[in-house]
């Protein structure tokens, strides 16, 4: 009888499996039960936690727990685990539970997991895959919980502990704890909310915060990396001089010399090439220029970040033989060629995406390598000064369009770390000014008696914009560019035709000229005509609603200056009346202006927009609204035309 009973129980259990929701998940659900999230939130994180333990070998284990309540079908994507996988970064013991709003509980199975290679394009090879795990399509009211471990090993840079308190969705409870080996220290950085409770007890450091509100997406808000609260912990062993994370940049820099300086070896083929490139050149400046141009142009970019390939440069002879390489490979090759010509150089760590944070030294902050030069007069005479800081000139051999004397735009305003055994410190590149990135648009538009438009247009780029444009002219077909302009203007004008297209460059400018014909942007208004003053650019601008409560600071975009001058030649017998009012508004270094004049039977309209690239506090919101509104007014400027003498008709 008891066997029978046991059999029945077993049968029932097999038919109706019960997945025990762990206690920590139940606690999180209970804690968040009374929370009323923002009406726009798609998900509510009831718990986000990381418990990290670091070993002396640099290996670390992070235990992750996450509980998410789905609030709408959009929130489904927040109810998944997304983690990168790498030979040095493994996910273990992944478990998951789902409490649907209706229906029985579910447990995560292997069928719910998929990993996809992060790089699938030929020319980019790595061994990173992205693991996604979750419960298929989730609906409002469903609650999911996950628990797993991240095991990291290998280079010490893997032991950096990152923690995101929140992405844009609200969070009830976020917590991170880090246990370090005895004697180790750490630095913590990131964007840590002011209400985070930081505690340190017996070797455990923890950060805990409750009730982080929903982060709305608003127009003209700063980049997300500057908004989302996050933390990263950089541990280091003060007694280990080879650590790539340390208390100071000097130690970090010195630790990289083994990786980036030791491959600088002059093999015979390197010597031969260097001799060939420098043949007949007298000064170091000329030799540097020749070598830099060659490496930049002749070695195509292919990234092989498999195994150690992600951090170790290939031997220069290999890069030379294959004629391809990534930033580390190209930098190393260039330095070897320079060394073969007895010219000193340095590897310099840089960051293309994101900001370098001074307070948390570590190589983890960098994602790029460039070359630092010790210039003599001969080099300084040859090149513009835009890549010179203190006594160094910096050059990026990976960027195909930025010549010696310039740097890629993304590096300006960030920090560089020259790699050196001796004293080294962060070098800060200045921010670009709006005048460093100017664009000028000039048009002379003739309106005929049937109001067709025949325009001669010049689009001029100066400064850093000219550098990028000039490089583009060399690598793209002129006809392709002409077609691009024609199709772009077809979005604003009806059936435009672009002809007589030509491209030009000189020492600091790059420009295109062309003829554009289309029906004129003219509308009959009673016995007058209404002319759209600037029909060439889209007038769509994201508006700011004055009555809205602003959450974020205000960011109009990266620094730039744009000037437009359009001269309208009117048909005989027509004049401008009345002259439109000027627009001129400045705000915190930003400028928008529009001015119309009517010299000798023409209409000349000049526009200027300047963006400083700064972030302004949200209590400037009203002023920002006024500024954006002025920009919109200027972009939409319409001008009335009337017959000289006041007759109606066209």
């Amino acid at each position, binding site marked *: 009888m008891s066997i029978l009973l046991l059999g029945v129980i077993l049968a029932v259990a097999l038919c109706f499996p019960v997945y025990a929701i762990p206690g920590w998940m139940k606690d999180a659900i209970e804690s968040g039960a009374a929370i009323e999230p923002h009406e726009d939130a798609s998900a509510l994180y009831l718990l986000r936690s990381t418990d990290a333990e670091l070993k002396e070998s640099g290996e670390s284990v992070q235990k992750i727990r996450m509980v998410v309540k789905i609030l709408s079908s959009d929130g489904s994507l927040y109810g998944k685990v997304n983690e990168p996988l790498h030979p040095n970064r493994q996910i273990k013991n992944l478990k998951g539970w789902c409490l649907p709003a209706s229906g029985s509980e579910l447990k995560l199975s292997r069928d719910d997991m998929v990993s996809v290679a992060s790089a699938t394009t*030929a020319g980019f090879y790595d061994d990173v895959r992205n693991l996604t795990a979750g419960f298929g399509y989730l609906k409002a009211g469903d609650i999911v919980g996950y628990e797993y471990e991240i095991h990291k090993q290998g280079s010490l840079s893997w032991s950096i502990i990152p923690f995101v308190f929140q992405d844009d969705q609200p969070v009830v409870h976020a917590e991170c704890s880090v246990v370090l080996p005895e004697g180790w220290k750490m630095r913590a950085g990131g964007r840590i909310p002011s209400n985070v409770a930081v505690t340190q007890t017996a070797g455990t450091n923890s950060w805990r915060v409750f009730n982080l509100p929903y982060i709305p997406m608003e127009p003209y808000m700063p980049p997300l990396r500057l908004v989302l609260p996050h933390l990263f912990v950089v541990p280091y062993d003060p007694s280990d001089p080879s650590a790539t994370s340390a208390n100071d940049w000097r130690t970090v820099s010195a630790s990289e010399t083994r990786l980036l300086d030791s491959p600088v070896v002059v093999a015979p083929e390197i010597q031969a090439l260097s001799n060939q490139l420098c043949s007949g050149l007298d000064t170091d400046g000329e030799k540097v220029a020749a070598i830099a141009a060659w490496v930049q142009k002749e070695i195509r970019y292919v990234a092989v970040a498999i195994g150690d390939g992600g951090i170790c440069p290939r031997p220069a002879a290999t890069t030379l033989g294959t004629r391809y390489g990534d930033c580390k490979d190209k930098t190393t090759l260039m330095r070897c060629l320079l060394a073969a010509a007895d010219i000193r150089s340095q590897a310099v760590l840089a960051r293309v995406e994101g900001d370098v944070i001074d307070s948390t030294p570590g190589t983890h902050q960098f994602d790029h390598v460039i070359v630092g030069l010790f210039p003599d007069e001969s080099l300084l005479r040859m090149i513009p000064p835009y890549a010179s800081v203190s006594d160094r000139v910096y050059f990026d051999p990976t960027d195909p369009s930025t010549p010696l004397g310039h740097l890629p735009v993304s590096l300006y305003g960030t920090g560089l770390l020259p790699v050196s055994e001796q004293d080294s410190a962060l070098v800060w590149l200045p921010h670009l000014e709006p005048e460093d990135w100017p664009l000028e648009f000039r048009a002379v538009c003739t309106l005929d008696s049937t109001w067709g438009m025949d325009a001669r247009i010049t689009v001029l780029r100066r400064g850093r914009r000219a550098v990028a444009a000039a490089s583009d002219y060399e690598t793209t077909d002129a006809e392709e560019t002409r077609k691009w302009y024609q199709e772009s203007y077809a979005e604003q004008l009806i059936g435009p035709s672009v002809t007589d297209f030509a491209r030009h460059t000189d020492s600091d400018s790059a420009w295109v000229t062309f003829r554009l014909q289309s029906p004129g942007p003219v509308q009959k*208004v009673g016995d007058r005509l209404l002319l759209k003053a600037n029909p060439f650019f889209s007038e769509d601008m994201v508006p700011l609603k004055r009555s809205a409560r602003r959450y974020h600071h205000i960011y109009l975009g990266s620094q730039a200056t744009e000037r437009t001058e359009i001269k309208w030649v009117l048909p005989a017998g027509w004049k401008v009346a009345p002259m439109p009012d000027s627009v001129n508004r400045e705000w915190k270094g930003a400028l928008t202006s529009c001015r119309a004049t009517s010299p000798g039977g023409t209409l000349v309209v000049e526009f200027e927009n300047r963006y400083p690239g700064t972030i302004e506090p949200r209590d400037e919101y009203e002023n920002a609204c006024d500024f954006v509104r002025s920009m919109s007014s200027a972009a939409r400027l319409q001008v009335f035309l009337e017959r000289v003498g006041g007759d109606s008709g066209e």
Partner: protein
Amino acid sequence: MSNRSAIVTFLLAVLLVGMATDADGRRRRKTEQRKARDQFSWMDISESDWQVSGDTFTVAPDAIVLFENITVNDTADIQGKMQRVEYARLRILTDAGRDWANVEVPLLSIDQEVYDVQARTVLRDGTVIPMTLDDIHDQTVVRAAGARVKQTSFSVSGTTSDCIVEYMIEYRLDSPIRYWVVQKDIPLLKGEYTWYHLPLGRQRSGDMQLSAIRALFGSLDTEDLWLGMEGIRTFTVPMKEDSQTTVFGVSDVPPFEEEPFTIVDTYLRGQLITYLSTSRPPEIFWGKQVQFFTKYLEKKHSDFGSKIKDLVTRWVDLETDQEKIDAAYTYVQDSIYNLTYFDLEDSTLSEKREALKIRRVKDEYAEDANEVLKRRYAYDHDLCYLFRGLLKAMGIDARIAFTRDRSEGVVVRQIKRYQFDGTIVAVASADSTYTFYAPIDPYLEPGVVPWYYEGALSFIEASDGKFVPIPLSDSKRNLTHLMSQLTLTEDLEVSGVVKERILGQEARSYRLNAIGEDEAEALEWVQERMEDALANAEISSVTADGERHGTGQVTIGCDVTFPDVTEQGNLVLIKPADYLTATYNPFTAAERRHGILFSYAYEMREILQLQLPDSAAVESVPADTVFANKIGRCGVQYTVMGQTLSVQRVFTLNYPLWSSDDYADVQKLFQARQEFSNHVVVVRQNPV
């Protein structure tokens, strides 16, 4: 030796032998690969290869394929696999052209084995730089549920902006991949495809369709078809001395250019398809096919069981056949649970499930229509068989029809193979025309099919085997009526309400998106739709009225707030286009190569009523405009009555399918609509 020891020893021996065999197999394979590698040799490079430049092209390419030779060897029986070899030579002309030396080996089949890859760069001075194994990368691109998809890529070494790069890829395949996409993103000067096929009468096992064709026609032959090759030179040479080899060739293939609103580009690119089938003309093939499947249907789906016969008695007294058809159609939609679209957890259908007493379902098709009735649930074509059965039991000539979703592919009647992915029902009328019904697809009125079947070809039971195009629905069937009632305040703020009435395919989209969703979630789709349509507006208080599981009109409503209007002195310049659905003109290119494909014909009627403040008056409005051509119609009308400005805009697209010859007319219609976006209404504040 004890029994136990003997067993252990035996097992160990088996294990060791197995391991040795496995190692032996690997060594044999490596040897074969080395032999294959040694057997392959590069073709000579001539001076004319070096002379090739981009000068003769309108847009100079970064690289040109000098030749591409494909060999498909169905006879190579290497461990049960077929062989395909691709050998391409590229002339690199610019720095950007070097990226063509980074090659992803195409994934032709999940089961493919990339048996060998060789590549090299040749410089002008004759230097040869062979690719090494370090330049080849195999990676697992997807890993899920125990399955893996691997991909091979490689980057050829030593490439410069003035060189030749060539590579050879050898595949081993479980089943033949016999197509060749000739048209690339760069020009191809010459190409050749050599097909070694099995002696006719032999084909590999496992290809059931091929077995069926042979059973039907008694024999197989090699077949080929060039697609998308208009204006491009091709040739076909059967090698007479060897009746098992055919060579196909092309020359001067221009690069493929993407265009908006076309069929999927896999069908647009110039390509060669080779396959085995009957040598009889397509009409005979399809004629026989239709006879075959008509017989099958007669045998399997014509014995109307008692349930069917009982059911139709309730409609037998309806006056017309159309009433009977509509009744049967409604029955299938309402009284059979459609598991193609709805799962058993759908909370909005719990009542229906209760009424039909559905608790558990079998994961397989029904035996016949009678069983569908018994089950009260169905998957896919079972719904068509049931509907057909009901109509036939009432003496109505209903037939199964196969078709293809035109957003995913097209039926090419010259290809004598099964190409369909959809099943519908065709009802024949006395004048030999057909009306089509889609019982599988919910939320459609009787006689209306999903838009992606409209215009597609159908293949109908008991017909003469000719393909019948499925008619396109009229634009009036897909009518959207949008009414914006807005107020302009003294502070120049604009806000109000918008109501949109949608019919036809758009209403169906709402319902399909709402499947399985509760009310709040269904409204999320509506919110997104309104945000897309009224790009400048802040949308709130969204509502949707209309039967969730029906076919009629859906009414969507929302509150809207727009950005402030711009002033110029004491004038306010209002652009009505800002307050109506956002439109754009995708047809900006001067020329068009491919046909134009929209989803469906539709009509959009919009009315904007803008109430002005007492302190303002309309000074002028643009002239009313009407443009019409065979493509459609676009008209705008302005009216001012007191303080109300009224703008009516109508846009009609007559048909969704147009040839490239009609491009100029398509462009003109969309330019006419684009013109409206520049219209300005001048309002004077504080008029005298």
